[in-house]
C-alpha cells in the first residue's frame, strides 16, 4: 500500500442544528480508503452512515456542520473547503451514485444531455468529443443502442436503467473515488445484482475506489474488501470483510449477523397440519386493469394464479416489482374484484360478496401494510388506532374495549405507556407492532402481510418475524406473506408461490422450490440474493446448488 491513503477520515464529528441546538450524529469516526479498494459502510437507519458519506462530498444538509476532525483526500483536508472549491473536485476526483434513481434525474431533459452536462461543467473537450464520450459511456454501462438511449427521457427507462445512467454520470470523468449511497436499495434483487456487477467491473477497469454505503450486510459481504460497522454515529468494528464476518468482535456486529435473513437459515420444521384443512383456496385468479387511453387493450396483471394455504401455516408470494403479487393480495383481502377466478377464505367465496356482507367478512381477514409510517393515522393515538376495528362491529362496552386493547398491546410486546402516544412518537418497529395489534384485535383467522417487514432495519425485522412466529403458534393464525426478499421467505414460510409477470412460475413446499426450482426465473432469483459470502452464525449451512 502507498504511504498516503486515497481517503482518510480522522476523528470526524458531525452535528445537525435542530431548533437552535446542535445534535451530534457522528461521533469521532475514523477510517481510510486505499486506492482501488471497496470499503462498505454498514449500519442501520440513524447510524450516521449517510451523513458520513455526504460529508466526504461536502454535501451535508444546510443545518449540518463538521464539528471536528479531518477528511483528507490524497492527503489534503477538505473538511472546511468552500462549496466553490469542492465543486472543482466533485465529479473529477470524488463522485456520487445516489440512492433513489427515480428522483435523481431531471425529468425534462434527455439522459444524453444530462450525461454531457458533467463533462461540460468541467470543460472536457468540445461538443463533438463530449458527444462521442456520452455514447461510449452509455454503451459501457450496458444501455444499448446508445444513440437511441441518449435521446430518451428518464420516464422512458426502468429503475435499473436509470441507475445505470447515474453510474455513467458518476464514472464519466474517471474519478478516483465513487461514493455509492445505497445504490441498489430501491431495485429488485436481480437488477441489484447486475448493477453491483457493473460497479465492480468499472472499478476493476479504472482502478476506482468505492465507498459503499449500505444497510445490507449481504451486499457488503459479497462486494467489499473492508467493512466499517457503524452504530449511532460510532464505529463498532472495522477490518477486512472476511475477518469481521468470520470472527466479529463487537456484540453489535454479532447481532447484525445473526439477525440478517439468510438462505442458509431455514425455519425449524413443525408438525404438519392436516392436509385437507384449507384456510385459503385461490383458483384461476385473473385480473385485468383497463388500458389507459382510448381503445387501449386492458392490461392483464394476473393470469390464472392458483394456490392453497393450509390452516395455521404460512404461504409466501414472492416476486419482483410488477409481478402482480400486490394485485393478488389485494384481491384476497377483497379490495379488488378479480376479472375471473375464485377466492375461498374459510369456504366462503369472497368474489361473490359485496356491500354489507363483504364488510362483515373483513373481520376474518386482515392486512398489514408495508409502510408503518403511512398505515397509521397521524391524528390518532395508539389506543384509538388499535380500538378502531372494534367500533365497526357489534358494540362492546368501553371498559371491555380498553381491556382488549391492553391485551393486544401486551401480546405484540408494547408497554402500556404507549397507549396515549401519537404514531410519530414511535419508531418504525413499534409502529409495525401497532399495525399488527390493530389487525389482530378482531381475532381474524387469516393475516395478510404485504411486505410487512421490508421497510424495517434487520434487527427490528428479526424481532417482528419472531413476533409473527410466536403469534402464529399461540393463535393458530394463517399467514399470507408477500415479499420480494427470498431470504426472509425462506426463513418463515411453509409453502411459496413465485410470481413473474402476472403468472405463477413456481409453487409448492418451500424446500422443493428452493432446492429444485422448476423455472429458470426462480433459479435466477435465488442466485441473485446477496450474502453468499456471508458466514452463518448458529446454524450449519445447507448445501446449495447454484
Amino acid at each position, binding site marked *: 500500500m502507498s504511504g498516503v491513503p486515497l481517503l482518510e477520515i480522522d476523528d470526524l464529528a458531525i452535528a445537525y442544528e435542530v431548533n437552535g441546538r446542535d445534535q451530534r*450524529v457522528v461521533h469521532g469516526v475514523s477510517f481510510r480508503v486505499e486506492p482501488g479498494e471497496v470499503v462498505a459502510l454498514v449500519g442501520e437507519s*440513524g447510524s450516521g452512515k449517510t451523513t458520513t458519506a455526504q460529508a466526504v462530498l461536502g454535501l451535508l444538509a444546510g443545518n449540518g456542520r463538521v464539528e471536528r476532525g479531518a477528511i483528507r483526500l490524497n492527503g489534503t483536508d477538505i473538511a472546511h473547503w468552500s462549496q466553490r472549491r469542492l465543486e472543482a473536485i466533485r465529479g473529477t476526483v470524488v463522485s456520487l451514485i445516489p440512492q433513489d434513481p427515480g428522483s435523481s434525474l431531471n425529468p425534462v431533459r434527455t439522459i444524453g444531455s444530462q450525461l454531457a452536462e458533467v463533462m461540460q461543467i468541467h470543460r472536457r473537450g468540445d461538443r463533438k468529443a463530449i458527444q462521442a464520450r456520452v455514447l461510449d459511456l452509455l454503451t459501457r454501462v450496458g444501455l444499448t443502442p446508445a444513440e437511441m438511449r441518449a435521446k430518451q427521457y428518464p420516464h422512458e427507462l426502468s429503475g435499473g436503467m436509470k441507475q445505470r445512467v447515474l453510474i455513467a454520470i458518476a464514472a464519466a470523468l474517471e474519478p478516483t473515488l465513487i461514493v455509492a449511497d445505497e445504490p441498489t436499495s430501491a431495485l429488485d434483487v436481480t437488477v441489484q445484482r447486475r448493477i453491483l456487477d457493473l460497479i465492480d467491473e468499472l472499478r476493476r477497469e479504472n482502478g476506482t475506489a468505492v465507498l459503499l454505503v449500505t444497510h445490507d450486510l449481504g451486499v457488503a459481504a459479497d462486494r467489499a474488501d473492508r467493512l466499517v460497522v457503524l452504530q449511532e*454515529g460510532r464505529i463498532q468494528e472495522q477490518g477486512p470483510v472476511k475477518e469481521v464476518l468470520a470472527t466479529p468482535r463487537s456484540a453489535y456486529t454479532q447481532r447484525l449477523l445473526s439477525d440478517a435473513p439468510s438462505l442458509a437459515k431455514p425455519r425449524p420444521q413443525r408438525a404438519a397440519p392436516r392436509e385437507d384443512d384449507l384456510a385459503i383456496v385461490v383458483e384461476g385468479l385473473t385480473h385485468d386493469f383497463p388500458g389507459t387511453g382510448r381503445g387501449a387493450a386492458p392490461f392483464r396483471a394476473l393470469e390464472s394464479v392458483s394456490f392453497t394455504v393450509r390452516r395455521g401455516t404460512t404461504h409466501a408470494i414472492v416476486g419482483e416489482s410488477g409481478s402482480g403479487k400486490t394485485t393478488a393480495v389485494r384481491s384476497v383481502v377483497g379490495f379488488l374484484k378479480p376479472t375471473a377466478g375464485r377466492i375461498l377464505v374459510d369456504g366462503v367465496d369472497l368474489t361473490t360478496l359485496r356491500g354489507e356482507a363483504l364488510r362483515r367478512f373483513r373481520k376474518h381477514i386482515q392486512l398489514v401494510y408495508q409502510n408503518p409510517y403511512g398505515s397509521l*393515522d397521524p*391524528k390518532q393515538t395508539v389506543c384509538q388506532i388499535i380500538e*378502531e376495528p372494534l367500533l365497526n362491529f357489534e358494540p362492546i362496552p368501553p371498559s371491555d374495549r380498553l381491556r382488549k386493547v391492553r391485551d393486544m398491546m401486551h401480546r405484540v410486546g408494547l408497554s402500556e405507556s404507549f397507549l396515549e*402516544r401519537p404514531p410519530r412518537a414511535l419508531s418504525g418497529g413499534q409502529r409495525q407492532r401497532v399495525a399488527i395489534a390493530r*389487525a389482530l384485535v*378482531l381475532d381474524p383467522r387469516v393475516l395478510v402481510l404485504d411486505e410487512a417487514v421490508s421497510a424495517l432495519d434487520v434487527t427490528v425485522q428479526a424481532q417482528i418475524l419472531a413476533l409473527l412466529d410466536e403469534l402464529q403458534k399461540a393463535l393458530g393464525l394463517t399467514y399470507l406473506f408477500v415479499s420480494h426478499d427470498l431470504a426472509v421467505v425462506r426463513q418463515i414460510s411453509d409453502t411459496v408461490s413465485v410470481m413473474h409477470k402476472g403468472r405463477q412460475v413456481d409453487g409448492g413446499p418451500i424446500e422443493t422450490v428452493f432446492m429444485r426450482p422448476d423455472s429458470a426465473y426462480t433459479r435466477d432469483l435465488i442466485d441473485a440474493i446477496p450474502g453468499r459470502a456471508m458466514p452463518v452464525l448458529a446454524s450449519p449451512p445447507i448445501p446449495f446448488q447454484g
Partner: protein
Amino acid sequence: MSSRETGGTNLDVLEPRGRQVLRFGWATRLRHLPPGLAASWCLVLVVMLWAAAPDLFTGYSGTEGVPGEQLRAPSEEHILGTDGLGRDLYARIVYGARYSLTGAFVAVAVGFVFGTLLGLVAGARGGWLDAAIMRLVDSMLAVPSLLLSLSIIVLLGFGTINVAIAVGAVAIARFARLARSEVVRVRRSDYVEAAFGSGGTFWAVLRRHVLPNSLTSVIALAALQFGSAILAISTLGFLGYGAPPPTPEWGLLIAEGRNYLSRAWWLTAAPGVVVVLVVLAADRISKSIQRTAP
C-alpha cells in the same frame, strides 16, 4: 453524565418530531414565536377587542358628531382627527371593527362550511358526483368574484349580513377545491384503506380519518380568506352596497373620506391602513397554520 447526554441525542435523531412535541410546552413555544407572527396575533386580538368592547378604547361615539369640531387634523384630542360631521375618526374605526369582523366571520363561515362539505362529498364519493360538483365550482370561479358578489347582493338586498353572505358564497368555490384535493390525497393513504379493511363504513371512515386529516390546510385557507373577506366587504362597502350610513363600516369610511381627500387625506388613509394591516396579519397567521400541515 456524558453517556446520558448522548443517549438523549440519539433518540432525538431517530424521533425528531415526536421528541420536540414531548419536550416543548406552550410557554417555550410562545417564546420561540417569530416576531412577525406574534405581532400579527396581537393585531388581530386588538381588533377583536375593538369589536367586542369598543367603549373601552374610546370615549367618543362612533356615529354622533360634535358640532363645531368638523375636519380637525389629528391632535391629542382626536388622534386621527374628525370627519366632515365632527365625528372622531379613531372612534369610528374602533366601532366599525364590529361590522367588518362580523361580516368577515359570516363570510368565512359560509365559505368554509358549504365549501368543505362540497369538497368532502366530491373527493370522497368520486365518479359523476365529483365531476358535477367540480364543474359547478369551476363555473363559479370563472365569473369575476366582485361581479358574482354584486349579483348575489342584488338578489338578496343590501345590508351587512347580506354582503357577508355574498362574499362567502364566492369563497365556497375556493374552499371546495382545496378540500377536495386534500380529501383525495388522504383517501389514497394506507390508513384510510386499512380503516375500510377493518370493516369501517364509508361515513365512519370519513369522520374518523378523512375529515381530521384534510382539515389543516382548509383551516389555513379560512385564515387567509378572513383577510380577503375584510377586503371584499370593504370594497362592497366602498361601492355603497354594504351597510347604509352612518354605520362606521371600514369600506364606507374610506368612501366618505374620499370627498375630503385634498383637505384631510388621513380620513381615507387611516381606515385604509387598518384594512391593509388586518389583511396582512391574517395572511401571516394563515401561513403559519399552513406550515404545520403534513
